[in-house]
């Protein structure tokens, strides 16, 4: 029975222990530790929120950059396309111009050749006429009158001319 009756001296020592402990721990040590824990908790919460914000921001930026990248690509393609078109049109122009010039040169050359040919033909006719008159005079002598003379030339010229036309 005496083992379940508390002994008074132990009560007082324990009361003193409680008072000392409650003052030292409850009022002195615990607040510092709980303050540390609370501050850490708020710090971690803050950091997590900040990290979340940063992640969202990063994602937004990434999307933005993707859009910009796509735009830049499209623009570049457009520029290249445009450049090719310009080049092609320039090429066509140059070729056309060259063709026109070549045609003009050719025409000019042909005309020059024609003129040369006409001049040469006229020269030849005249030469032939003179020569034939001279030949005829030699053969017939001066018996031919002026009138006969001219008639002969014309006849001959007509012959030569018809030959020339063939």
């Amino acid at each position, binding site marked *: 029975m005496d083992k379940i009756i508390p002994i008074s001296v132990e009560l007082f020592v324990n009361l003193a222990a409680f008072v000392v402990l409650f003052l030292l721990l409850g009022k*002195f040590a*615990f607040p510092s530790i709980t303050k540390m824990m609370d501050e850490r908790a708020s710090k971690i919460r803050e950091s997590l929120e900040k990290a979340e914000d940063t992640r969202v921001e990063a994602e937004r930026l990434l999307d933005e950059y993707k859009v910009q990248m796509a735009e830049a690509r499209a623009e570049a393609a457009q520029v290249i396309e445009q450049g090719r078109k310009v080049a092609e049109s320039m090429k066509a122009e140059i070729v056309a111009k060259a063709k026109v010039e070549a045609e003009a040169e050719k025409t000019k050359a042909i005309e020059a050749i024609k003129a040369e040919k006409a001049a040469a033909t006229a020269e030849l006719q005249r030469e032939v006429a003179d020569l034939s008159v001279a030949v005829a005079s030699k053969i017939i002598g001066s018996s031919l009158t002026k009138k006969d003379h001219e008639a002969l030339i014309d006849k001959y010229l007509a012959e030569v001319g018809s030959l020339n036309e063939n």
Partner: protein
Amino acid sequence: MSGTTAEPAEGEVTATEEVEGHGGEEQEYTLSSRIEHLNHELSVLALWGPLEEQQAEHAEPMSVVSSSWNLGSLASNFTLTNYTFWMMPAVLLLVLFFMAARSAAKVSLAKADYVPKGILNVAEAGVDLVRGNICTDVMGPEGAKYFPFVGTVFFFVLFNNLLGNIPPALPGTGTLGTTFLWGIIVFVVYNGIGIKKNGLGRYMKSFIPSGTPGAMKPLIFLLEIVSHFLRPITLGIRLYANMYAGHIMLGVFAIFCAVAIKNFTPVGAVVLPLSFLMQVVLRAFELFVAVLQAYIFSILTAVYINGALHAAEH
């Protein structure tokens, strides 16, 4: 016997029966004499001061309490017993531990270094258990306000229980003087909180549940009062009995070992390894009980405070 020998008793004690007990220890290794010795050493023994007086008053419990109120013998009221002697290093360790953790917390806060480490990490684990799993879980968010008290109770009980597991020491909580007084402190605190929160009238009225028939009211009130006054007693006896019984078990198996070694017989050859095994198992179990009882004591404290806070609601 290593687990249960009360080391301080050897130098300080003046009682003739104690001296005789030590004399007999050298010669007799019979089971009954050792168990008698264990029983003696696990009893509450005053280490100095008016020892004979205390032991004499022990037989008449009421006179012990009344004589304690004599202020003239104030010093004698602080006489240590073999249990409260071991409470001192436990309290000292507890204070040193939390002071070290406190200064670590201060240093960390000043440096804005929030990485938990070292002693502070250990202290925070304990504080978080009491504040989170005991106070806040039982009492809700406002429970954190009562953490300093519940935490003091928890760590006092925990350190005493654990120190009792280091061989020469006895647990400071292994005597009713300690556990009953802490039960009374809890009783005073939770009733004080209840009265402060609800006012004396409403708090007393809450002892009668609403809807009680008129004729039953005095009986119910009486029963409630009795149940409230039983709380410190049950708190005290639960903790005391657990710690005391644990040390009796350890002591008994240690005696089996000692007697089996001293008087070696075929039976002893079987008893010795089994007793040693039990000693090991019980040591582990005592560590578990030490933490569990601290948890139970403080969670009941939290439950009582919670009941007092919400007394007006039922």
